[in-house]
C-alpha cells in the first residue's frame, strides 16, 4: 500500500482521482494550493486508488494522509 501524505499544509484545489480508479506512475492525483501556487501530487507508482481522504476546499495540514494506492 502506498500512502501519500502531504508535504505541507494548504488548501485542496482539485481532486483528480477517486477510489477504484487505476492510476499510472506520474499521473496527477490532486492539486493543493499553497501560498497562491498550485502544487500537484503525482502517483509515485502504478496501482489502484483505494482511498481518498481529502475533498476540494479542505484546509489541510502537513503529514496528513491524502490518498492510498494499492500496487
Amino acid at each position, binding site marked *: 500500500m502506498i500512502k501519500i501524505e502531504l508535504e505541507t499544509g494548504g488548501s485542496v484545489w482539485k481532486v483528480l482521482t477517486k477510489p477504484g480508479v487505476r492510476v499510472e506512475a506520474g499521473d496527477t492525483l490532486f492539486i493543493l494550493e499553497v*501560498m*497562491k501556487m498550485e*502544487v500537484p501530487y503525482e502517483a509515485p507508482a502504478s496501482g489502484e486508488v483505494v482511498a481518498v481522504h481529502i475533498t476540494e476546499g479542505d484546509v489541510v495540514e502537513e503529514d496528513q494522509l491524502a490518498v492510498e494506492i494499492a500496487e
Partner: protein
Amino acid sequence: MNWKTETDEIARRRQLALEQGGEDAIAKQHGKGRLTIRERIDKLLDPGSFEEVGPAAGAANLDENGELISFDPANFVLGFGKVEGRRIVVAGEDFTMRGGSPSPAGLRKSVYAEELTVQYKLPLVRLHEGSGGSVGGTGGKGASLPGPVNAPARFRSVAEAMATVPVATAALGAVAGLPAGRLVASHFSVMSKATAQILTAGPAVVERAMGEKKTKDELGGWKVHTKNGTVDNGAADEAECLIEIRRFLSFMPANIDQLAPVIDCGDPVERADETLLDIVPRDRRKAFDMRRIIQSVFDQTSFFEMGAGYGRSQITGLARLNGQSVGVWANNCKFLAGSMTADGAHKARRFMELCETFSLPIISLVDEPGFMIGSRAEREATIRHGTSAVLTAAMTTVPWASVMIRRSFGVAQAAHYGPEGYVLAWPSAESGPLPIEGGVAVAFQREIAAAPDPEARRRELEEELVARQSPFPRAEALGVHDLIDPRQTRVELCRWVDRIQPLLPALLGPARFSIRP
C-alpha cells in the same frame, strides 16, 4: 645486547591493538550489519594510505614479572590518510569496546583529533558510533581529580577546527551524548539510514527522566533527523555515507588558506539547454522544477545537494562551473512556494557561512516570494531567522552572482543578493515589495470593495500591475547587470566565474565570521 625484546613487544602490542574488542565483539558488530572503525577508515581512504596516530595508546595488563598479559587499545582510532590523493585527518570511536564510551586513552585521542587537524591544516573526517561519558567514569584506576580551572576550554578546538578546515562527519551506528554533539559540529554531516540513530540521550535515560517510552529509531532515527536539520543528509547505508563524504571533500580546499581545487570538467562552457526556454510557466500559479535548472546550468552531474530534507523551501549545495567550486542556493517553489521559512533561513544562513569560511563564490537562483506567513510561521519566529539570513548575506565578502528566475519580493529577497553582487534576470523575473496577489488585495482594498464586480476589478488590477513588473525597465535603469536568455545562463555564469578569479586569493585566511552549528 640489542633492543629486540622491546621491538618484539612493540609488534605484539600493535597486533593486539588491531584486534580491537576481540573476535566476539567484532562478530557482534558485523552481525548488526555494521563495520568496525578500522574497516570504515579503510573504506573511506585511498587504499594503503592510513597512517595511524597513537597506535600504542591503551591500557597494558602486566603480570608480576612485568610481562604483558593483555593489551586494551584506546577505543578511539585516529590518524592521517588520503582521499583522492589529498591528505586528511580521520577519526572515530571503536564501538567494539565499551560501546564506544571513551576509555581514558580513547578520550585523549578523541579530543586530540581537532587539535591535530588545526595544527596540520588538514580536513577532518569523523566517523561516529559511540556514546558519551558514563557515570561509572572512564574506567581508570583510582579516583581522578577534576580538571583544573585553567585547563583549556574543552570545546575550543572543536570550534577552531570548524573555522580552519573542512569538517565532515558521519553517524554510522548509535551516536549519543558527546559524540552526537561533535557529529553536528561539522560543515557536512550524513547519517546511515540502515544503521544509525542520533540521540542526545538514549531510550533508558529518556524513560527515566521523561517517562517517555521510545525506541532508538523513534527518538533519533533518520526520519527524525534528516527532516529537522540535525544532519545535512541521509544515505542508504555506511558505504553510501562514506561516498557522500568523499564527494563533499572534493569541492573543498584543504583549509581556509587555500582555494578549492579547480578540476577539468569536460562540460562545454557554451552548452545551451533549450529546455530552459519554457521551464518557467507563464501561468504564475504553476510551479517549476528548480533542481532541473540547477542540473542544466552547472557542470554536468556536479551538483551535490546538502540538506534536501530540511528547510525544503530552500535548496543548498555545492557544484562546479567550468570546474570552479561554487556554493549554490536556490528557492524551491514546489515547497511552500519557495518562501523563507524559519528552518529554510537557518539552512541558508549556515550555507552562506560555509561559503564565506572557505572562500567559495555563491551562485543564487532567485524565486523568493518573501518570508513565510501565517500563525505557524509567527510561532517559529520566522522574521528573526529570516532577518538573520538577510544580514548574513549582507556581511559576506565572497563574490555573488544572482539570477532572478521568477519572483524576488519583500525583505526576504535581500538575502539572495550579496554585496556588489552580479545580477542577471530572466524574462520571467518579477520583483517588488510584495507579490502582486497578496499586495493588491490589501493596497486596493477599498477600490475593490466599491467596484460593481469586486472579483473582476481585483483581477484587472493584478494584471495591470503584473504588466508593470516586466524586467525590461529594470534593465533599462541598470537595475540588473543584464537581462538574459535563460539558455545563456550557463555561459554567462561561467564567464563571471572567470572574471572573479583575481578576487579569490584576497579572500583567503580567517573569515570575518565563521560557521557554527
